[in-house]
């Protein structure tokens, strides 16, 4: 029987869908009866998405122009 600690340790593999079917089934049985772990999984998954959204930057246009100029001066 998995503990909450066991579940959290393998969440990364659970989200990557690389757990063996037996371990995934154990984890899902634990989740069915454990509200804190269900909350943990939901917020862990959302954190992954939020972190990605927060970090999804584009290089600013003026910086692109400076980079282009910098390289053309040295390469062209």
């Amino acid at each position, binding site marked *: 029987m998995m*503990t*909450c*600690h*066991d579940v*959290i340790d393998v*969440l*990364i*593999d659970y989200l*990557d869908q690389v757990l063996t079917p037996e371990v995934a089934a154990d984890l899902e049985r634990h989740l069915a009866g454990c*509200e*804190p772990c*269900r*909350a*943990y999984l*939901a*917020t*862990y*998954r*959302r*954190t*992954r998405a*939020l*972190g*990605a*959204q*927060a*970090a*999804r*930057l*584009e*290089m*600013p246009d003026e*910086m*692109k122009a*400076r*980079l*282009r100029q*910098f*390289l*053309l001066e*040295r*390469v*062209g």
Partner: protein
Amino acid sequence: MTSDEHGLLKDAAAGDSVALEALMSRYGSRVYRLAYGITRSAADAEEIAQDVFLQLVRKGGAFEGRAAVASWIYRVTTNVALNKRRGKRREVETSLDDCLPAYEADGHRAGSRAFLVADWSARPDAELLYGETRRALDEAIDRLPEHYRAVLILRDVEELSNDEVAASVGDSVSAVKTRLHRARMALREILTRTLGPPA
């Protein structure tokens, strides 16, 4: 990637400005994102992007076609950014230990019931990505060690596989997964402290 990217790299290295422009268009923001993610400084990220693209055009002609161009660019960017951060890390980074889950002896998580069951995951982006929560998220990202931020960007933003991230940062897959998991757990914990009931 692909033979056409290898061709672009070699053409750019030979002084072809059209090929250079294509590489910049394809990789400029990816290099900037990773460099900013590691250094958390737009000025440093700009210098790193200049250094990386200069290396691409100077060394791209000798690039071995067996490897993916993207992995090589990510590896060069990571190395340049980590070198730039060397000596600065103590100024802004602290231990993550107090942001990781704590457990009782029986394997249950420690903390108040209200905190443990706090689930803010259904709240809309508009609430989570702006204001106080966004500040908490940015501060939490700042607290991560730079190697952790590198894998977070490569895995969760660029959506590389664990193997590709490991090749890009020069670490084992196991180290990449450990860092990624700890980074996500720390961010989750800090967000829950901001959004949920007291621990």
